[in-house]
């Protein structure tokens, strides 16, 4: 295997392929993610970080970890853009994960608004990571709009249901040059492993860790699963004949030369 298998996002190099999501946070969770799972990127909900001194989540973030502020709470591209700018003013850096939801029940992303916000923020110099519903046309539009990676959802956020959108994520992995980071719905290390085997560039998870009985052990399990899946992908998985049966008599047996 290549010794230097790194994840490049917006010109920045990362060794870890586990990204901690922001849904449910605590000091213990962040420590487990960094120490156990080796996370180098931690998502931060700006709407919660924008707080007074009592309990500032910014104080939780260890040195050397890259912050990925998200725009959760935004319902339109304009709101997402304002939140991203605020994050930059707060000193959260240039990365931004765009989350635009017009649905408070399933928190499904609004692809159209996400494309608009990506275009505006990429032009302003942000490293834009859009959270999206896996649709190839939208992924291409996001690339043209200047996204640094594509973040399709595996299943409804917080559901721990795994790769419910597997076929469509595979299409994105096959067709797009940008890194595909699987976000939302990954509930078990085995599911993270499977996504990595498919060729995903990284995994983002939060609830799977946050709701585990033993955070640190679960974080380590995710690290190992992601590394195993990545290794399998790089090694090239064995041939699997999934499309149609393998006929015992060759159809071309009639050919004489």
């Amino acid at each position: 295997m290549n010794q230097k298998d790194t994840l490049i996002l917006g010109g920045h190099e990362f060794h870890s392929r586990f990204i901690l999501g922001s849904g449910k946070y605590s000091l213990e969770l962040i420590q487990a993610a960094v120490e156990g799972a080796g996370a180098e990127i931690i998502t931060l909900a700006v709407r919660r970080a924008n707080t007074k001194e009592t309990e500032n989540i910014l104080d939780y973030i260890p040195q050397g970890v890259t912050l990925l502020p998200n725009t959760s709470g935004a319902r339109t591209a304009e709101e997402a853009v304002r939140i991203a700018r605020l994050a930059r003013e707060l000193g959260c850096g240039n990365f931004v994960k765009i989350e635009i939801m017009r649905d408070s029940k399933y928190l499904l992303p609004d692809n159209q608004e996400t494309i608009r916000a990506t275009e505006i923020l990429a032009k302003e110099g942000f490293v834009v990571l859009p959270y999206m519903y896996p649709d190839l046309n939208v992924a291409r539009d996001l690339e043209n709009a200047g996204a640094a990676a594509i973040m399709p959802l595996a299943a409804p956020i917080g559901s721990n249901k795994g790769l419910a959108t597997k076929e469509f994520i595979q299409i994105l992995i096959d067709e797009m040059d940008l890194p595909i980071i699987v976000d939302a719905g990954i509930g078990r290390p085995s599911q993270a492993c499977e996504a990595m085997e498919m060729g995903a560039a990284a995994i983002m998870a939060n609830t799977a860790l946050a709701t585990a009985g033993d955070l640190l052990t679960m974080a380590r399990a995710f690290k190992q699963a992601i590394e195993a899946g990545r290794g399998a992908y790089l090694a090239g998985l064995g041939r699997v004949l999934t499309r149609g049966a393998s006929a015992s008599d060759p159809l071309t047996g009639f050919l004489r030369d």
Partner: protein
Amino acid sequence: MDNQYFIDDQTLSPAALEKKHRLETDPSSRKNHMEYLPGMEQIESDVCERVMAQMKAYDPAAYTAQDVRRALQHETCTVEDFKALLSPAAEPFLEQMARRAQRETSRHFGNTVYLFTPLYIANYCENYCVYCGFNCYNHIRRMKLNREQIEHEMQVIAESGMEEILILTGESRSMSDIEYIGEACKLARQYFRMVGLEIYPVNTEEYRYLHECGADYVTVFQETYDADRYEQLHLMGHKRVWPYRFDAQERALRGGMRGVAFSALLGLADFRKDALASALHVYYLQRKYPAAEMSLSCPRLRPIINNDKINPQDVHETQLCQILCAYRIFLPFVGITVSSRESAQFRDGIVKIAATKVSAGVSTGIGDHESKYTGKETEGEQGDEQFEINDARSFKTMYRDMSREGLQPVLNDYLYV
């Protein structure tokens, strides 16, 4: 047995007493509670009809243990499942319901718990709602804070560390008009990250104005969804108009508010039917306004000044817990607020199962935060309380206690954009 709501105050004039008694005893002396008053906006909406149809058809006694077991097995809780979970047949399953509710809460909210505090800025009221301490016939110290007093209260609260505030008034348009409330919102935005309102229902354009002034969230309690019962409890004033109140949340959302909160006041009528209607009010509005944030409260009746006998009737803590677990299983994504009407012990327990938001440092009186927070004698006058609270923990104590329970207190989850 019903509560003994009617209390005659010595200071009322003979004419006032006579009117009060007529309202209490002669239904024909009361206005039609289903008829809009001049100035009340009427919107096109089928939400009320849908909620009422379900509520009328609901017979809690018809559900069996088998229905409850089936409901608990379903991954998605249907309206029928929810009805079973609210029924008396579900009481023996309370522990199982609590475990399921806890899983849902943890999936959607992790281990977070939001803290906020209410700020009453006026207690003048033009309504006669028989169970409420602010009702116009109750002899209490009335007060309306001026701009400087509001700002002072906000400073005291903000210094405690609180970042979310809920501004409340009594229901009096003449004493607390929209501009007055709007100015309070503008002030609040300077001290808090998140400003909610719990005031008398207003029209869409008034909600829009209040949103522009900085408010983001509107709470309106329907008190009871049983319109006939409502008529017997809300004898006079704007609040008497039941359908105008029902549509308040929808008008607020049309006016640009980010979120809305709902509740029945448990103990006024059949609490199972009221709980069903409250949740369905959320359910149908969410389908119509999917971007809106929604939350449910679950207040029970409490004693008031001059009537310490008012109580929540048959809604004991067990029933309250059952309702909250059923809410959580049916609507896993909604916020659930448990107020200081409940005991510290109940609140500490329920935040681990279903509730996501608790108040702290609460006063339901007017202009008394400094004396309550610091023990300092306040020179100015103070207005009386709406009801007696039970859990009097300060912000700091609540923050510490929630952390000790293994929860992560969150002070702000919104950005006004």
